[in-house]
């Protein structure tokens, strides 16, 4: 592929897959996190039913992120996963519990309370582990001879705990705003009340992580505060303010779709902020996307298919969402 910077293209595609995962499974996991606050019975059934047809597709983006990283940046995959080993295992085990709960809670009404707890606990653990993984990457990973060279608890720090909680709260906001869109009656009112509190929580968390990141180490602060880059980077916090204001306004006015879109906007801006901080590193402070990139033969072979298939995936995913559009309805059983 002449003239095309394959490494950069693949960094963008992996970034897109991770972003797609975060927003799509984000609202799924968020519903799991909020699940105990909904009343047993109709409210919980509605919440579950609103994601039952789509959660599997949402989670596929996580597999895409992992598989894509292995294909396009094998060195990064080979460093990050051992470096965050306990987090990865905890996330996978959490995803197992919440994944099976979708079917099992219907199959076994006698143990529905147990599977509801499994759904929540699994979602909490997965969200926390994902947020802490983000923190562990941002704070830097010890690398020697192209391999992870730190201990097996290096990822644990006040900063990674902060990012873990931030992602947890953010996912819960996504979940609450999704339920505002998809439910009605008492579930809707409950979701609105939760969303107002979670919006405040998400903004506080976003501010705390943003405030801590530039002072972590390395050159993060340069990217954010030095001229002329600041002219561009300053737009990110500005847009965050616009999104947040619209979110609060739409919640107060009782809009049912706008809050979810604004919550997505906040995540998108947070993601752009991360990109600004990280680029060109994929494993800071040692490995850039160029160091980690697979050979051109691998990148071009996969890109040839990806540029055709990814738009197709987006099309039929959109169709599947369209089929199940509208409010969930109150009757779970037929």
């Amino acid at each position, binding site marked *: 592929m002449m003239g095309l910077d394959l490494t950069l293209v693949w960094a963008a595609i992996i970034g897109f897959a991770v972003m797609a995962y975060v927003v799509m499974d984000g609202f799924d996991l968020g519903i799991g996190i909020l699940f105990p606050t909904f009343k047993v019975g109709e409210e919980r*059934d509605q919440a*579950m*039913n*609103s994601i*039952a*047809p*789509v959660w*599997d*597709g949402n*989670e596929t983006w*996580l*597999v*895409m992120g*992992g*598989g*894509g*990283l*292995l*294909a*396009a940046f*094998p060195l990064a*995959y*080979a460093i*990050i*996963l*051992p470096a965050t*080993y*306990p987090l*990865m*295992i905890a996330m*996978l*085990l959490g995803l*197992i519990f919440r*994944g*099976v709960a*979708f*079917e099992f809670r*219907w*199959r076994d009404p006698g143990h529905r309370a147990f599977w509801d707890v499994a759904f929540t606990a699994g979602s909490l653990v997965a969200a926390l582990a994902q947020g802490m993984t983000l923190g562990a990457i941002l704070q830097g990973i010890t690398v020697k001879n*192209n*391999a*992870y*060279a730190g201990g*097996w608890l290096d990822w644990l720090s006040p900063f990674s705990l902060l990012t873990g909680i931030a992602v947890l709260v953010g996912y819960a906001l996504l979940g609450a705003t999704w339920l505002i869109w998809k439910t009605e009656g008492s579930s809707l009112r409950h979701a609105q009340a939760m969303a107002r509190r979670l919006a405040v929580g998400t903004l506080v968390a976003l501010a705390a992580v943003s405030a801590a990141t530039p002072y972590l180490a390395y050159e993060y602060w340069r990217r954010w505060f030095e001229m002329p880059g600041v002219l561009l980077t300053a737009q990110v916090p500005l847009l965050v303010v616009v999104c947040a204001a619209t979110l609060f306004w739409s919640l107060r006015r009782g809009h049912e779709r706008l809050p979810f879109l604004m919550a997505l906007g906040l995540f998108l801006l947070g993601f752009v902020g991360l990109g600004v901080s990280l680029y060109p590193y994929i494993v800071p402070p040692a490995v850039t996307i160029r160091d980690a990139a*697979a*050979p051109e033969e691998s990148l071009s*072979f*996969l890109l040839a*298919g990806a540029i055709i*298939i990814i738009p197709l*995936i987006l099309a*039929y995913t959109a*169709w599947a969402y369209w089929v*199940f559009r*509208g409010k969930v*309805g109150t*009757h*779970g*059983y*037929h």
Partner: protein
Amino acid sequence: MLSGLDPVVLARAQFAFTISFHFIFPAFSIGLASYLFVLEGLWLKTGRGVYANLYRYWLKIFAVVFGMGVVSGVVMSYQFGTNWSVFSQKAGPVVGPLMAYEVLTAFFLEAGFLGVMLFGMNKVGKGLHFFATSMVALGTLISATWIIAVNSWMQTPAGHSINEAGQFVPASWVQIIFTASFPYRLVHTVIAAYLTTAFAVGAVGAWHLLKDRANPGARKMFSMAMWMAALVAPVQILAGDAHGLNTLEHQPVKVLAMEGDYRASPDGAPLIVFGLPDSEAAEVRYALSLPYLGSLILKHDPFAPLPGLTDFPREEWPPVHIVFWSFRIMVALGFAMLGIGLWSLFARYRGRLYEWSSLHRAAVVMGPSGFVAVIAGWVTTEVGRQPYTVYGLLRTADSVSPLAAPAVAASLIAFIVVYFVAFGAGTYYLARLMARPPERGESEPPNLPQRAAGITPASGVSAPFATKE
């Protein structure tokens, strides 16, 4: 306590445990997806309610199986990095794109259409719903193709070069995908998934026939499953034979370990039916063997010479006793399946397919046989690849992540506990679903999520139950 353990052994144990558990579910869902495709197709073609009922009956089971396959599969996509990071870094440029293509062309396809397949019967038209079922079935087959391509490259690597960093760099993607063992392994594995499903479906049908011979759903599913057994079990034995000849050509040490042939047989090798392999002494103790049959099977010539394991350095040997036994379990089950298939043909000829209780009992006993055979076959080919991850090129001991033994041991224990709780419960729910006889007016999956949003429910879905049965 745990630090005394070898991290390589622990990492292998963890991969073996997670992949074996995972493989059970796709082996079933590949077959079930195709079966559902056939059932819905027959229903649309004939309009007979029995097919619609069976579709809904097995759809509920499929939903549980598929869910467990998804969550155990997500684990696999991260196992390569968490536990085999050196393998990932070195072989990632070759196997990574193949696995990414599996996600792009198969996983998204299955997941995207699964929601409509499970919950969309009243939301989209019949044709569109059948299309969704077809896409899910197609997705399972595409998935099998890519992952078998990855595995086959690791068994019989070709089409790559090795750069100065020791990384495998793709040279020819056609050669990487279509390696020497790929077509044999793909055919053998997909047929295995179909047979596994046929015997599971057959056992459920037989179970209900034992209780009520007149149940039309039980009769139909038993008959369909027995046709599969009778027609496909012999094909599988032939495919397995061809696969074995191919392995002998490219991985002779693996086949010699499977056969228990420690010593060379210049005048034709016997077939060792049973015995206790002893690698220390390089002999099979208490061997029960049939002369010349080994060469006849492997070379299709009773007097053809065969080498022995002792012709190869010991550090190239896989763990002989494991592959020796796993291979025998697989083959024995394959012939037992053939036996059931032939018995069912005879029963059909005598007009007693639905009345012959001992056939039904045998079919119930054989219900799990496919799962056992699939795992045994997988153990044979994977343990037989040892001591390499990429055969002949990258040793397993050199592929593992730089992790401390306690971390790997702790995660292994966590996986074992979680899998037994989650998948143990799932297996119990499956058994409960299967224990319920198929009924007229079979219900849909219970959590139909949403009321129709502007689409008229497809009226035909429930109508045919009133018509011809």
